[in-house]
């Protein structure tokens, strides 16, 4: 992307939709770098940090959270219209997030079950990714995204180039860090072979199996991994739940998981 008239600071907005706020912490948790960042860009809307101007025209908009209400659908269109480059950050914004599990059960039924007076609640039956509603220029996957991901992408945009998409498997990072594979050496049902890199293989790094919070990698052979887990003695339904978790609405995970789930309700 090309930045407008060099000389003026690029204007940045951080918008929040249905989420846990964890991805915004990639910015709020930057420490000293946050102060430096504020000399490089102008945050015109970032409610949690202070500036509030949701309707402002911006160069770069970071969008956290999934689209879960009719009002959200309206608002994301406005955000798109006002943003030159829109970056969806985190599992909620890129796949619908953990809350997209409600898509499987018929969300309205759940709302009726959850709230004594459902009529008060503006909530769609589904929780969906931002890209299902508007054009997204770049996606950062992860639940949550890390400060590294956000600053690297932002830095690239400030330099006028598209950020690099990380889409290899977690196994690549795992092996580059010389970790011992927990699947091969301990028989754990690691999701690394189908999960998008970016976290630095945190879970195998502390001796546990990856649970795919970064969503599907490119060319993810989810079905083969599911069958491999079943062959190792894990019940089908448990395998299904591994795929239908934080990124249940992403197509490869949905396909591998849905047939394996015992009836959810």
């Amino acid at each position, binding site marked *: 992307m090309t930045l407008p008239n060099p000389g003026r600071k690029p204007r940045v907005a951080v918008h929040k*939709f*249905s*989420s*846990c*706020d*964890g991805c*915004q*912490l*990639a910015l*709020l*948790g930057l*420490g*000293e770098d*946050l*102060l430096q960042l*504020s000399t490089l860009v102008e945050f015109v809307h970032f*409610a*949690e*940090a*202070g*500036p*509030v101007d*949701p309707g402002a025209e911006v160069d770069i908009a970071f969008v956290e959270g999934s689209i*879960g*209400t009719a*009002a959200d659908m309206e608002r994301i269109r406005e955000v798109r219209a006002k943003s030159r480059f829109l970056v969806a950050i985190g599992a909620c914004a890129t796949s619908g*997030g*953990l*809350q997209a*599990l*409600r898509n499987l059960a018929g*969300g309205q039924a*759940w*709302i009726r*079950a*959850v*709230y*004594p*007076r459902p009529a*008060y*609640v*503006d*909530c769609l039956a589904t929780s969906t990714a931002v890209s299902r509603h508007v054009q997204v220029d770049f996606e950062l996957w992860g*639940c*949550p995204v890390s400060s590294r991901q956000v600053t690297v992408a932002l830095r690239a945009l400030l330099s006028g180039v598209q950020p690099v998409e990380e889409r290899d498997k977690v196994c690549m990072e795992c092996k580059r860090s010389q970790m011992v594979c927990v699947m091969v050496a301990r028989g754990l049902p690691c999701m690394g072979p189908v999960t998008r890199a970016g*976290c630095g293989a*945190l*879970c195998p790094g*502390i*001796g*546990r199996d990856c*649970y795919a*919070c970064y969503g599907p990698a490119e060319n993810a052979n989810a079905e083969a991994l599911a069958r491999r887990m079943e062959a190792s003695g894990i019940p089908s339904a*448990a395998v299904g*739940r591994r795929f239908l*978790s*934080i990124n249940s609405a992403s197509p490869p995970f949905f396909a591998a998981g849905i047939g394996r789930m*015992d009836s*959810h*309700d």
Partner: protein
Amino acid sequence: MTEPRSIAIHVPVLARVEGEGSLEIRTRGRTIAELKLRIFEPPRLFEKLLEGRDYGEVPDMVARICGICPVAYQMSAVHAFEELFGIDPGPWVRDMRRVMYCGEWMQSHALHIHLLAAPDLLGYDNAIAMARDHPDIVRRGLLLQALGNDLIRLFGARAVHPVGVRVGGFHHVPARSDVAELHARLVAAVPQAEALVRWAAALDLPESEQHFVSVALRHPAEYPMNAGRLASSAGLDAASADFTQHFAERQVAHSTALYCFLHGKPYMVGPLARINLNLERLPAAVRVVLDECRFSWPSRNPFHSIVARAAEIYFSVLEAARLLRDYSVPRAAHAEVVPRAGVATAATEAPRGVLWHRYEVGEDGRITAARIVPPTSQNQARIEADLRHSLETLGLERSDAELRQRCEMVIRSYDPCISCATHFLDLRHARD
């Protein structure tokens, strides 16, 4: 004196609170006709999502309720299951969980004090603007926040949605060298944390003497984090399993968050409530600094919450340093877990206050029903009561801008976390 008038204050997006909420106030004459702290964050139906899941999946799932206090969610969940399954993870796990919780208190409180609340008190729109004039204060805050994050990382590999916690203990044992490095940083941060409390106590905080009930955990020997009984300044003393005998949630039309009441009345949870109820459990070093304040403890002024937060940061630095000083590597990072059917409940002290979980678990270790009561829904009625009080004492004749600013200050002083607040489920209704 100006004529009483009809005003409407509308803050469409509350800035510097976690999550998105709004405030609407309508006054008629000298009285407040309507006051709505509206939380419009869409509900995420977590309790329903948990049904059918294995107990082992719960810590990673409930973390996603809140990015600012995921450790608290994980802690309440694992304690509930361990209690039900009859597991004693042993002293090492117990201590290290406390260290991890210290990390969360430090990062959450430091974030709130410096990025969310302080700009109000020093007259800035936001922390970035404030940093230009008060760089050292902001730097100190960022340093303590980073230290807290690194304590969480020590056990959880990352600070948000850490991956190291499991039922029975942890997934791994931190290396001695990593612990030594963090211990050194904690020791070095002690003077900074102490200075932070003095700085907070010296802030020009509004006077606001109010009557409210404080609720927090109390433990026979410790400042409460993971363990203790539910206590209140009105004499409550209950096991966390008995939570529903005393506390009840209600839905109101204007909010997706449920309101929680103690014996039908609003109450306060969080740092101020904790200190009010556990003053004598604080280490002497922290008490000394608190005793030097211009006001006395327990405090009846909710604006003193910022001092309570600073004091808890100081406490957390000392406590984590104490627990890591003679760090030893245990034989195993976690105890063996064999699930059993029944009802699991636990309450722990999230940065914002009591966080209560309840799970019904089947024979196979899978969840059949879940209920979570986060601190923000407990504080919500109290915040509205405080707003009424604060506006009426300030005087409704003040300008809209002044009233609005005071409202925001009041709300922020509770550090509400709206993401947490909107996951709700009222079980009694869910069943029919």
